[in-house]
């Protein structure tokens, strides 16, 4: 009888040893949401017509974030100079790039882009420059400027929205799979 009790006790202590971790540790939210590794950030370049290529540089960075490395390389090699919304949409269509854009200052688009962790290119400086919007929450926004890719620029949400709306309100985002969040 004692032996049986001992065996039962041993079994009870051993049972469940191989059980997987039941509760994952709490997760800290990543800031900015689109936390582009430095190596993926594309700096601006001069196009064939001598113009800056900020719109395309922004697209290259965001395409890399969404795992489209070859498409990004193709854009880097074949596109350049400044763009207008319609012209850029036409080029993206020709290149079979899946994208979405607005040119009417619809803030919901920016919220969608950051909420889904894709990010988007937005116009600033009166429409003369495009940067990547990499974070937008209730209070703050973060930008990645292709003219200085080392650091993010943080600014109040309302300041960013006012600047964007005063700059034609154009925003464009590739629509693929964003990189997974940090564990």
């Amino acid at each position, binding site marked *: 009888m004692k032996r049986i009790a001992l065996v039962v006790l041993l079994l009870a202590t051993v049972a469940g040893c191989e059980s997987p971790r039941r509760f994952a540790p709490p997760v800290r*939210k990543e800031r900015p949401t689109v936390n582009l*590794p430095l190596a993926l950030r594309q700096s601006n370049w001069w196009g064939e017509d001598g113009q800056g290529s900020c719109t395309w540089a922004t697209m290259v960075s965001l395409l*890399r974030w969404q795992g489209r490395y070859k498409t990004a390389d193709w854009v880097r090699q074949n596109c350049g100079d400044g763009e207008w919304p319609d012209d850029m949409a036409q080029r993206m269509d020709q290149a*079979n*790039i899946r994208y979405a854009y*607005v040119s009417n200052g619809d*803030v919901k688009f920016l919220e969608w882009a950051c909420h889904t962790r894709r990010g988007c290119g937005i116009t600033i400086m009166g429409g003369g420059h495009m940067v990547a919007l990499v974070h937008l929450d209730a209070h703050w926004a973060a930008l990645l400027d292709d003219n200085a890719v080392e650091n993010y620029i943080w600014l109040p949400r309302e300041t960013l929205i006012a600047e964007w709306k005063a700059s034609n*309100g154009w925003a464009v985002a590739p629509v693929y799979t964003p990189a997974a969040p*940090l564990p």
Partner: protein
Amino acid sequence: MNRLLLCVLCVLALFVSVAPCLADTVNGVLAEERVVNLPQDQDKWYISVVGDAADGRYKEVSGWFDSNPSLLKLKTQVQFCPVETNTPIYQERYAGNIKGLPTVRMQKPDGTVVYESAGKDIPLTAAGLNAAFASAVNEAQGLRPILPWRRDVDRRLNKCQPQPKLEPQPQRDSDPEPQPINDGDTPDVEPDAVVWAAWLLAPICGAALLAGLCLGYGKKLTAKWTPSHW
């Protein structure tokens, strides 16, 4: 002349009444130019398959998501991220937090890891991996796993569940085929049905009962024939 004026006034009145109905204002800006339905997939979970592109095991595990119907279905319900070790994404976002190669990791949208296995701990078959995902999803949601013989019943009861919305096929480029655009939420994963013959259950039970009776009777006979005063 009066009729002409009346017509003009009618047309103007029509414009005045219809315009506000068409113009959807968002933050003070007219939004009637919106041309696309954006995927509301912020609640989709993530599955990352991480490995060396030249590693056969990585290729095999990645391939399961195209060849196994259950994993293929799961792939369309999540943000699927194949990550190769020669990419900056791997260096900066995976190298420091994985236990080995290849790695399969399932995460909630906030980054919480609900399942992770690496190297030899990855299930040997696609069905095994799918079952591991199903178990992890159920556990993360605090659900009991559905027993195999209950699945059809549950399916019949849940017939009215909405089917995932499928958008037009994505365009091709030189990168891998992109995932279809669809909205998303917690993945619905079911382990592959174990193929077993339910009709075998009755004969097995009968045989066990018979064996039990025989054993009992045998013991009685043994006790009867064995002298108790030995």
